[in-house]
């Protein structure tokens, strides 16, 4: 069978290959697709495409534009689930290339949508096509990294998934710089920025495409051997993807991820108005933007720090910390607000957001511990549907409960207290799912077919 550059066979690393060349390849992809978290920088300019300086009657509404991000995140989860097995089969290079085409192409189609002022083309471009790029790109390097770092799977996947959190830190100022650069009297620079970002991100993701390598089947790190001492929640067996999601462990992990993400994502989306309303008159919009930035930093840092720590603490113990510490901090937040202490309030949310990021980054290693390495990428893809659900559930809980309370006469500064206690309840559900975790029954383990006699 002929082998092309993009095929898995062409990416098998030669003997003596330095495995620390693989994480930057993964980071190149994750730093690019992490742009999604900063898409909101385009929201207001997209509502002034006709009026330029202010919205004209024919301009898009903010609520309409807001759907673009929601569609992209929903498609991320769905495409990761749908294409997970394909990503496993074709290997990281072809899947990263597909992701780069979809993500870069999504920007291009969105630019055409801006040119013709077609909201549906924006949804189709950034939302659907870009969302597929997000989903495929997110899971592409995960199983490769786990295979390269069997001794430190948490650290390896944490490094890559840290990039998804860090992508927003690059994209937010980059988008603003580009729009400023391309702004004219007749355009606010969104179209040109989309085209430029599509090209930049495609090229940056190609760094990952060109450099990623998979280890040979019999490769092991020098001096490392698989532990013979059995650990309760770390298996040496493999579970196939179609079997994995029939196990209770898959759904327990689904609950763990969904609850952890729900508790963080709603706060992340409402962080700016929340701090301004709780500390009314003391926190300016510009300082609130600083708060959002700080949360993004902790979201990114937590991905690497917590995932690395999980290699030493164990995966279940790490999530126990997330849930118990999360419950403690969420229940203290209303009191910090009541005290009027901005530093305590900020510190509590910084730790909460670090655990939100940590939850994302530790889950691939948790899956590896429970289901083995064989189909871990595909299983991870299916588990990301929990993110899609949390992406809707979290903001809805925070926004609607706040509005309900304000409508019933609760002062704005106190309107978040109930939400915080609901977050505690969600984290308690996550804690129980994690507490119930036990090894996968042997009946689900993969057995290679017997050779024909």
């Amino acid at each position, binding site marked *: 069978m002929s082998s092309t550059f993009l095929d898995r066979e062409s990416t098998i690393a030669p003997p003596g290959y330095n495995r620390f*060349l693989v994480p*930057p390849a993964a980071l190149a992809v994750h730093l690019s697709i992490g742009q999604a978290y900063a898409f909101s920088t385009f929201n207001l300019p997209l509502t002034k495409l006709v009026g330029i300086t202010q919205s004209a009657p024919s301009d898009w509404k903010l609520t309409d534009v807001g759907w673009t991000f929601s569609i992209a995140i929903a498609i991320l989860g769905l495409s990761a689930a749908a294409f997970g097995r394909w990503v496993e089969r074709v290997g990281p290079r072809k899947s990263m290339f597909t992701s780069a085409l979809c993500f870069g192409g999504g920007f291009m189609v969105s630019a055409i949508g801006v040119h013709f002022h077609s909201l549906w083309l924006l949804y189709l471009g950034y939302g659907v096509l870009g969302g597929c790029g997000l989903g495929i790109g997110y899971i592409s390097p995960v199983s490769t990294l786990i295979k390269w770092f069997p001794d430190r799977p948490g650290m390896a996947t944490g490094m890559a998934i840290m*990039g998804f959190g860090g992508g927003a830190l690059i994209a937010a100022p980059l988008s603003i710089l580009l729009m400023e650069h391309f702004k004219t009297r007749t355009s606010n620079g969104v179209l040109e920025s989309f085209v430029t970002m599509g090209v930049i991100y495609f090229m940056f993701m190609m*760094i990952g495409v060109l450099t990623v390598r998979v280890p040979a089947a019999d490769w092991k790190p020098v001096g490392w051997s698989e532990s013979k001492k059995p650990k309760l929640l770390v298996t040496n067996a493999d579970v196939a993807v179609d079997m994995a999601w029939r196990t209770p462990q898959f759904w327990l992990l689904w609950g763990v991820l969904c609850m952890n993400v729900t508790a963080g994502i709603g706060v992340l989306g409402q962080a700016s108005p929340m701090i301004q309303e709780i500390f009314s008159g003391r*926190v300016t919009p*510009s300082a609130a*933007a*600083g708060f959002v930035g700080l949360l993004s*930093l902790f979201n990114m840092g937590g991905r690497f720090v917590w995932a690395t720590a999980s290699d030493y603490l164990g995966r279940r113990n790490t999530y126990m910390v997330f849930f118990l510490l999360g419950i403690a901090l969420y229940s203290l937040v209303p009191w910090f607000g009541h005290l009027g202490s901005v530093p305590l309030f900020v510190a509590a949310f910084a730790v909460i957001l670090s655990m939100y990021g940590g939850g994302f980054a530790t889950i691939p290693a948790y899956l590896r511990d429970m289901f083995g390495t064989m189909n871990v990428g595909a299983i991870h893809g299916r588990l990301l549907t929990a993110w899609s659900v949390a992406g809707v559930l979290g903001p809805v809980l925070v926004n609607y409960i706040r509005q309900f309370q304000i409508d019933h006469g609760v002062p704005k500064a106190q309107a978040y207290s109930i939400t915080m206690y609901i977050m505690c309840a969600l984290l308690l559900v996550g804690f129980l799912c994690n507490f119930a975790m036990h090894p996968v029954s042997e009946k689900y383990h993969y057995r290679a077919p017997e050779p024909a006699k």
Partner: protein
Amino acid sequence: MSFRFIVLWLAVLVPLAWGVMRTLQNALKLFS
């Protein structure tokens, strides 16, 4: 350490460091 190793890590860490610096500059406004 090979040339490729250094170039690859710089290619991903320099943009990230730039983003972190810009974010920190904004975050400092919270405490000023």
